[in-house]
């Protein structure tokens, strides 16, 4: 690597003195983002209160049922959600990508909507819908069947309920991966199979499915990781039912009296499991799972479904009721109803919740402001870092670019709550007391967004062939002029898309923020979580709707820009 500078060395030599500072500078930034918190995490997990080296924390972790039970629960949830997501999302992805089902674009847009819906908001909405007694669905069930008061159809405060709600907001990951993989399978391959006499099913079995399988596997892994590291949904639904998952357990270890050494130790299994699974994914799939190139060789052949297409659409509609239509309806209803779980009627319609949130709740303004500042800053800083690192690695511009690529991708293996714990341990002590400032949250959000942002921009750079830049250079333009006139315009859409993507991610982030916030640095997601603990459902609904409106405004903006919505996007947990 150190000597591998090819023929272009001549005009690169002028910058060669810059390459080391750039490398070191960005490597340092990425280290601060990722290596430092993880080191503290490991250090704390291996020491006792007095700072002496010990394995006691891990011994307790491995023997105390207080920790084993949540770990087992977490794995059950993660496996079940992953399977459920694949069973749902794979056929949906196929219907949307490879059949003539109507409204395929609309379905994709709706899946994007569930993609960007904060999972904790979905969980609260599902409380409104399926709490065993007051839930709207259970009320309807009793009215329709005449069942007695204490019978119910669904109980959201249960293991099954947690799995269900997590799956609702995790299946889009699988869907996007599968649908995009199917989009990319060249039609020629299927044509070839057909010409050689293969019927539809044979073609599907021999060509389409094997080609899509890696994406499905990747999706299954992503879904597993999401379900495993999610904090909000289990905190909202599992605690009332009387059980913990690993994330809620880690969080509870931060309650008074805080036990950071145990929290650190409890974080490590999640980290190790995530790294192991990502390695497995990497081994099975190679590097393709990370980057997505848009180049289609030929249009995929669409399978005519005949009248079945309406049935398929109907089924998809029923599926999408769960992450989108029903929860949104429940939130909207609760926002305007005097009693959160009563349907709005002339007798109980009220503007009180809106009035309360905007004119009485004194943290609304602060939380909105913080969220907005953090969203803009994290998106700008994150995009800038990802842009430079993406450029450097895509063009192999400096020696050691692989280090940068690794560092930029590494946070994908760190669950949000684990990162939160690590950052808390790193920045609450002198000399770096960032706790209590927006900076610590900024670091968390940038870190969390970095892998996806980097992959998006890096692949965008790859799509722009260096020949274009070289041509400009040969014609006499300077490197800056080339960047300004050729590269930047070609990448503009990707940059804006990445910016919007980070912004949306910040709005929905809860798992790191819940560890790192202080009263002055509260964000909307934390405020909503607070309100849920005191049962203020009307106020939550109003804040949730504000959150969704902002999110959709940004998503629509991004969608107006061609090139957004690539499968490389990995939204992180909230």
């Amino acid at each position: 690597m150190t000597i591998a500078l090819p023929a272009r060395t001549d005009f690169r030599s002028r910058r060669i003195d810059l390459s080391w500072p750039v490398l070191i500078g960005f490597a340092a930034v990425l280290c601060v983002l990722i290596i430092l918190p993880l080191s503290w995490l490991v250090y704390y997990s291996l020491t006792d209160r007095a700072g002496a080296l010990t394995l006691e924390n891990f011994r307790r972790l491995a023997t105390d049922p207080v920790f084993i039970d949540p770990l087992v629960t977490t794995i059950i949830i993660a496996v079940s959600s992953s399977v459920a997501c694949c069973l749902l999302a794979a056929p949906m992805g196929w219907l949307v990508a490879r059949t003539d089902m109507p409204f395929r674009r609309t379905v994709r847009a709706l899946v994007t909507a569930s993609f960007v819906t904060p999972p904790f908001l979905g969980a609260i909405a599902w409380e409104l819908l399926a709490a065993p007694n007051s839930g709207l669905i259970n009320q309807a069930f009793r009215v329709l069947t005449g069942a007695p008061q204490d019978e119910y159809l669904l109980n959201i405060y249960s293991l099954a309920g947690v799995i269900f709600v997590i799956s609702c907001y995790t299946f889009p990951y699988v869907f996007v991966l599968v649908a995009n993989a199917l989009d990319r399978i060249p039609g020629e391959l299927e044509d070839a199979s057909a010409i050689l006499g293969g019927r539809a099913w044979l073609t599907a079995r021999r060509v389409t499915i094997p080609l899509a399988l890696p994406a499905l596997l990747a999706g299954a892994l992503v879904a597993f990781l999401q379900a495993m590291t999610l904090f909000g949904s289990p905190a909202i639904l599992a605690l009332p039912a009387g059980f913990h998952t690993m994330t809620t357990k880690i969080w509870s270890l931060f309650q008074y009296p805080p036990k950071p050494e145990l929290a650190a130790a409890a974080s490590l299994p999640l980290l190790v499991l995530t790294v192991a699974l990502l390695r497995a994914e990497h081994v099975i799939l190679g590097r393709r799972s990370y980057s997505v190139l848009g180049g289609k060789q030929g249009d995929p052949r669409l399978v005519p479904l005949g009248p079945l297409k309406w049935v398929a659409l109907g089924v998809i509609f029923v599926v999408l009721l769960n992450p989108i239509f029903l929860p949104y309806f429940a939130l909207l209803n609760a926002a305007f109803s005097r009693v959160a779980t009563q349907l709005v009627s002339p007798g109980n319609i009220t503007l009180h919740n809106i009035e309360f949130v905007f004119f009485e709740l004194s943290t609304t303004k602060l939380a909105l402001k913080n969220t907005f500042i953090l969203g803009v800053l994290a998106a700008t800083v994150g995009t800038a870092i990802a842009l430079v690192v993406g450029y450097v690695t895509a063009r192999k511009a400096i020696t050691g670019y692989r280090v940068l690529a690794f560092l930029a991708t590494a946070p994908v293996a760190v669950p949000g709550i684990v990162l939160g714990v690590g950052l808390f341990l790193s920045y609450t002590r002198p000399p770096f007391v960032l706790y209590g400032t927006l900076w610590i949250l900024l670091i968390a959000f940038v870190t969390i967004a970095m892998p996806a942002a980097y992959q998006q921009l890096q692949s965008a750079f790859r799509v722009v062939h260096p020949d274009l830049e070289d041509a400009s250079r040969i014609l006499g333009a300077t490197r800056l002029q080339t960047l300004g006139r050729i590269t930047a315009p070609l990448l503009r859409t990707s940059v804006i898309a990445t910016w919007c993507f980070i912004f949306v991610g910040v709005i929905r982030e809860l798992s790191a923020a819940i560890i790192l916030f202080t009263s002055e640095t509260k964000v909307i997601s934390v405020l909503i979580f607070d309100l849920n603990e005191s049962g203020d459902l009307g106020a939550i609904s109003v804040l949730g709707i504000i959150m969704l409106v902002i999110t959709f405004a940004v998503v629509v903006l991004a969608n107006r820009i061609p090139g957004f919505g690539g499968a490389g996007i990995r939204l992180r947990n909230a």
Partner: protein
Amino acid sequence: MPSLSRREVLQGSTALGLTVFATPIRAAAPPAEPVSPALVEAAKKEGKVVWYTSVDLPVAERVAKAFEAKYSDIACRVERSGAERVFQRIGQEYASRIHAVDVVQSSDAAHFIVWKRDGILAPYVPEDVAKHYPVEHRDPDGTFATFRAWLSVIGYNTNLVKAEDAPKSFADLLDPKWAGKIVKAHPGYSGTIMTATFQMSRDLGWGYFEKLAKQRVMQVQSSADPPKKLALGERAVMADGNEYNMFQLKEKGDPVEIVYPTEGSPLIVGPNGVLKDAPNPNAARLFQSFCFTPECQQLIIDVGGLRSVHPLTKEKPGRKAFAEIKKMKDDPTGVEKNAEAIKAHYTQLFHV
């Protein structure tokens, strides 16, 4: 590690506190301070006050709005969470030398013992406290006084439970007919429930909670939430929760009814105090004074459903008189000594 160093500070200061307690060198409370025009001016210059509290959010915001209405140009920001969370938050923030809170209010009076011992409270006696407040409701050193009092009670939804079938006592809640129908708040979040759990485990024994844990209770966090869950009809009965939320809901027409258990209702006392390192020291003192005025105390009675120990306030007609209710005895010192053990024991029984 900040929390660790805080712990060490706590341990160190425990020893100190005991010494101070043993030798009578306690400072007397400073003289009462009426609200002077100079204080109002200085407070207006600061322009804001931050109140960490565990009062149910709408009530807290009403107090804040009343303060803002009286002293325009001073914005009052309410930071509400469960008392145990507020306690942890202040500990965590102070360990990182973040001084964001001006005035603190807690539903776990034991917290004030710790804060006072840590020396983070400022002595400040509002005029109303000096003139009117009973001795047992004010700190002899003038660092806090009782802002509000209330009870943790049993309650039921009147649509789901007939009055004659409703539980009359804590013991009644152990009847198998209530299995799966009970909602209950958490002592690791709520100071009310921490205090109540202490009093009940003292008077009824932990055996009561062991049996209650087998009733498949719905576990919520805030003591304000069980009444709200009753009102929604989500559960038929609440094993504990704020009397004042029940008043609010009942008077709004929601189908809830209070039961004062025959064993006695846990008595909760919520003091208010000014922080020594308050970022807005003048606004903090002005707000502290405001909190104890008859006008504010009457507001928390009328709007909040709370009880006041200010003798110039009047109870709201239709509510059972505070004096007539059988109460368990409050004992902040006992709560302070047992808080960690109570949380651990509770988690062991209820799994969360």
